[in-house]
C-alpha cells in the first residue's frame, strides 16, 4: 500500500496540500473499501457457520449450511443493495446527498455490529436474524455507493482527477483483501489459543465453542471502516463544487433547466444572438425522443442491449466466483478435505487462499485498467477480458481431472487468479464505464441505471445459482440437504459459456475512446476520469 500511496501522492500537483489530498483519497475511497469488505466477508465464514450450527451426528463430513440458508446468507445483501439504491436515490433528491450520506454510513455501522450479534436459540433463528441484518447492511451499502462516487467527484480537481480516481477505485480491492486478512488473523489467533483436533479424529471436538465468536468478530469489524468514514467525513472541510461539471452532467442539468424556462428564438437578432438561436434550434429536435420511442430504439437500442447483457453476464461469473471460491478450492484439493481439518483451520485456509487470489489477480487488474484504458480503448479491454476469462475457465474445466490430482495445485491457482485478473482488467471495469459514455446526456443516467440493474440481477443469479449447480452429480456425495447438481467441472463450463456470450454481446457496444462526452476537446486523462465518474452509479463493485 505504501508504494501505491507514494505513486498517487507524486501525481498530485500541489505539494503544499499533499497530506490534505491523501486524506481526501482515503475518505473518498473508504466508502468503496467498506462496501467491498462488507459484501464479501460473508463468503469467508459460511463454511464455519455450517460447522457450528448444522452438524449432522455421525456424518463422515462436517456440517454445511442447507441450500436455502446458504443462498439466503450469501445473497440477501444484494437484495438489500438494490432496495437501498432506490430508496436513498429518491431521498437524495429530497434532502440533498450530503445529509443522506451520514444516514447510510450510520446504517452500515449499526447493521454490521448487529450482524455479529445475531441471536436465537435454534440454528434457523440465528440464520434468520443474520439475514435480516445483512439485508439492512446491503440497504445502507446501496445508499452509500453512489454517494461515495459523488463525494469522490467533488474532491477530484482537474489536474489530478485520473490518479485520484484510480486510487479511490483501488480501495475496493483493498477492501476485499482486508476481509481476508481479518479472517486470517482472527482464525489464527483463535486456533493458537483454543487448539482442536481434526474432524476425522474427533467430530465433536473439532469445532470448539469459541468458534462462534470468530464469525461474529469478522462481521462486526465491518463496522469499523464505516465508522471511520463517518468520522473523517465530518472532519473534512466542506468543498463546494459544481458536481455537474466535474461529473460531466452539465448538459443534462441545462436540459432540465430549459424545460422550465422559455427559450428565446429571435429572428431579427444580431449576429451573436442569431448564432445562439441557431445553436439552440437543433436542441428541440434531439431532445424530442424519449426512452421508449422508436428513435431511441433505432439509435441506441442495440447499445443498451449490449451494455445490459454484458454487465449481466459478467456479474453471473464474477459474483459466483467471488462467493464460492472456497468450494472450487476444496474441489481441486488446494484446500484440504474438510474432514482433515478443524473448524478454525478450515477458515484460515479459505481466507488465505482468497486473499492470495485477490492480491495477485483482482487488485493488479484494477491498476492495469486505469493505466491502459485510454491506450487500448474500452472495446479492446472488454473483448480481451471476456476472451481471456473464457480461455482460462476452459483451461480449468477441460482438464479438470488433471488439476485435482496431487502436485498440480500451483497451475490451477495461477489459471484461476488470471481469471480474476482479466475480469478486472476487462469487463468488470468497462461495463461500468461504457454506459456512462455512449448514451445521450438526457438518458445517460437512466440507461446506466438499467445496465447496472442488469448487473445486479446477474449478481443475484450468480450467487444463488452456482450454489446448486456446483454440487456433485451423485446425490450421495452432495452436501447435506442439497439436490444433485452438475458438478464443479460442468459449472465452470457454464461460466465459460457466460463469458463467451458476453464476448459476443460486446460487439453491440461502440468504442468510445477518444470521443469526448460533451463534444468538448479535452485531455485524455480528463476524458478517462470524466468517464469513470458518472453521477448515477448503481454498481457495488466496479473498477
Amino acid at each position, binding site marked *: 500500500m505504501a508504494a501505491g500511496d507514494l505513486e498517487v501522492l507524486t501525481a498530485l500537483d500541489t505539494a503544499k496540500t499533499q497530506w490534505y489530498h491523501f486524506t481526501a483519497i482515503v475518505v473518498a475511497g473508504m466508502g468503496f473499501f467498506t462496501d467491498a469488505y462488507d459484501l464479501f466477508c460473508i463468503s469467508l465464514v459460511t463454511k464455519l457457520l455450517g460447522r457450528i450450527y448444522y452438524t449432522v451426528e455421525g456424518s463422515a463430513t462436517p456440517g454445511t449450511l442447507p441450500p436455502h440458508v446458504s443462498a439466503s446468507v450469501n445473497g440477501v445483501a444484494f437484495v438489500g443493495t438494490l432496495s437501498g439504491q432506490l430508496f436513498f436515490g429518491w431521498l437524495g433528491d429530497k434532502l440533498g446527498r450530503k445529509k443522506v450520506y451520514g444516514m447510510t454510513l450510520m446504517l452500515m455501522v449499526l447493521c454490521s455490529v448487529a450482524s455479529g450479534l445475531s441471536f436465537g436459540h435454534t440454528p434457523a433463528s440465528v440464520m434468520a436474524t443474520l439475514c435480516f441484518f445483512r439485508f439492512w447492511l446491503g440497504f445502507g451499502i446501496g445508499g452509500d455507493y453512489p454517494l461515495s462516487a459523488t463525494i469522490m467527484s467533488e474532491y477530484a480537481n482537474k489536474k489530478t482527477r485520473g490518479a485520484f480516481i484510480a486510487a479511490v477505485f483501488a480501495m475496493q480491492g483493498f477492501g476485499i483483501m482486508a476481509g481476508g486478512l481479518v479472517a486470517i488473523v482472527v482464525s489464527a489467533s483463535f486456533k493458537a489459543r483454543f487448539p482442536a483436533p481434526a474432524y476425522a479424529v474427533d467430530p465433536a471436538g473439532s469445532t470448539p465453542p469459541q468458534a462462534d465468536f470468530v464469525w461474529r468478530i469478522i462481521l462486526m469489524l465491518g463496522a469499523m471502516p464505516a465508522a471511520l468514514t463517518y468520522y473523517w467525513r465530518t472532519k473534512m472541510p466542506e468543498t*463546494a463544487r459544481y458536481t455537474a461539471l466535474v461529473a460531466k452532467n452539465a448538459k443534462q442539468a441545462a436540459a432540465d433547466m430549459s424545460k422550465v424556462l422559455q427559450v428565446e428564438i429571435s429572428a431579427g437578432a444580431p449576429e451573436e444572438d442569431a448564432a445562439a438561436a441557431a445553436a439552440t434550434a437543433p436542441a428541440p429536435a434531439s431532445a424530442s425522443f424519449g426512452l421508449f420511442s422508436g428513435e431511441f430504439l433505432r439509435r441506441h437500442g442495440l447499445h443498451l442491449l449490449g451494455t445490459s447483457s454484458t454487465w449481466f453476464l459478467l456479474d453471473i461469473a464474477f459474483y459466483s466466483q467471488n462467493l464460492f471460491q472456497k468450494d472450487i478450492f476444496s474441489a481441486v484439493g488446494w484446500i484440504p478435505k474438510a474432514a482433515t481439518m478443524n473448524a478454525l483451520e478450515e477458515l484460515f485456509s479459505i481466507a488465505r487462499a482468497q486473499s492470495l487470489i485477490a492480491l495477485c489477480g483482482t487488485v493488479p487488474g484494477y491498476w492495469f485498467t486505469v493505466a491502459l484504458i485510454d491506450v487500448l480503448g474500452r472495446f479492446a479491454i472488454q473483448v480481451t477480458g471476456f476472451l481471456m476469462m473464457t480461455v482460462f475457465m476452459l483451461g480449468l474445466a477441460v482438464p479438470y481431472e488433471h488439476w485435482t490430482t496431487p502436485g498440480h495445485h500451483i497451475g490451477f491457482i495461477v489459471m484461476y487468479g488470471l481469471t480474476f485478473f482479466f475480469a478486472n482488467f476487462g469487463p468488470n471495469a468497462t461495463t461500468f464505464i461504457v454506459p456512462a459514455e455512449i448514451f445521450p446526456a438526457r438518458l445517460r443516467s437512466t440507461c446506466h441505471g438499467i445496465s447496472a440493474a442488469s448487473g445486479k440481477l446477474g449478481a443475484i443469479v450468480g450467487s444463488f445459482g452456482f450454489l446448486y449447480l456446483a454440487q456433485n452429480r451423485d446425490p450421495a456425495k452432495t452436501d447435506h440437504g442439497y439436490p444433485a447438481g452438475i458438478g464443479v467441472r460442468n459449472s465452470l463450463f457454464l461460466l465459460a459459456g457466460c463469458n463467451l456470450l458476453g464476448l459476443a454481446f460486446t460487439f453491440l457496444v461502440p468504442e468510445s475512446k477518444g470521443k469526448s462526452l460533451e463534444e468538448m476537446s479535452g485531455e485524455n486523462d480528463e476524458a478517462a476520469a470524466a468517464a469513470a465518474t458518472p453521477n448515477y452509479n448503481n454498481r457495488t463493485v466496479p473498477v
Partner: protein
Amino acid sequence: MDGGDAPAAGGGKVACAAWIRRREDKSAAAPARVFAAYGRAGAAGSPAALEVLGFDAKECSLSPSPLARAVIGDGGAGDAPRGIAVHPAGDELVCATAKGCRLFKLIFDEFTVRIIPRDAPLLESVGPQKCLAFSTDGAKFAIGGEDGHLRIFHWPSIKVLLDEPKAHKSFRDMDISLDSEFLVSTSIDGSARIWKIDEGAPLVNLTRSSDEKIECCRFSRDGMKPFLFCTVAKGPKVVTVVWNISDWERIGYKRLLGKPISTLSVSLDGKYLALGSHDGDFCAVDVKKMEVSHWSKKVHLGSPVTSIEFCPSERVVISTSHQWGAELTKLNVPADWKEWQVWLVLLALFLASAVLFYVFFERSDTFWNFPMGRHQPAKPWNVLKESPPVPEDQTPW
C-alpha cells in the same frame, strides 16, 4: 413579521442586514447557531452602529434587543453602513461605509457575543463600495466600488488578488461562484462580465442585445445546477435569464415577478431565488420549477427592496429597504424534510421488514421442506452411518 426598529433599542434605521451561521469547531455534528447582524444608520444622539441579534428558530423571530453592539468608525456621517458581508465561518464580518470597509471580529461565548473592531488598512481606504461578497469557502473576498473599482482579496491574509480600477462605470451587482472559480459583476450601464478569480483577469462578457440591461446576478448554489441567474431589463419588461457556466450561453428566460426588480438573492442550499421589486414586494422562486412559490406584497411599501438574505437553517428571510429598515419574513413554501422524519421512515421500513422476516422464518420449514422431501429417501440414516471409505479421486461432497 417582527420589525427591526424596536423603539427600545434606539438608534437609526437598519440600513443593511446579514445572517451569521456559527459553526462550532469542537463538535462538528452539533447544529450551527444562527444570528443576525444589523447595520444601523446614525441618528440624532446615536452614532452608526453594528448589532448582533439572536435568532429563535422555533418562533422564527429575532431577539428584541441586540446581544452585542459596536460603533462604526468615529461616529461621523461618513460611517453610515451600506452593506455587510459575513465570512462563511461566522467569525468575521465586513461592513461597507462611505469612507471604506470596516472589519469586525465576532466572538461567541456560551451566553455572550462580542464585536471587536479590527484594523485593516487596505480595506479602510477603498472609498464607498456597493457590493461585498465572500466566496463559499471563505478564502476570497471581493468588493465592487461606486467608482467601478473591483478588488479581490485573499482571505484571511487580505492580500490583493485582483485590482482593477476601471472594471465598470459603477457596480450594480456582484457574486462569486460556488466553487470560487468565477466572479460575475454587472454595471449600471447594463453590461455584465465574468472574471477568473485565480488568474485575476476578465474571462468573458455576457452577450446581450443593445436594448437589454443585465442588472442583478447570482450564481447557483446547487452543485447539480451549474448556472448563473441574472435579471435582465428590456425596456419596461424584466425577465430572469439563466446562463450555463460551462459555455456562458443562455439556457432560457422567464418572467417571474412581473415588475422592475431591485435585488436578487439565492438560498444557501440553492433551492430558492428571491426577487425584490422597486415598489416593496418580494417573492421566492423554486429553482427546480422556476415558479413563484411565495409572494410578499408591500413589505416595504413604496420603497425599493435593497437586499434579501436567506436564513441558513430556516425558510426565513430578512429584507431591507432605505425607508422601512429590516423586515423578517417567514416564507410560505413547502417544508423541507427534516432529518428525524427520514429516520422515522427508515425505522418504519426496518420494523416492517422485521415482521416480514419473522413471518417467513415461521413458515420457512414448510416452504423449504418441499425440495428436501423429494430427496430425503436418497439419504437414509443408516446409509450415512455405514458409508464406505471415500476414494481419493472422488470429492467428498
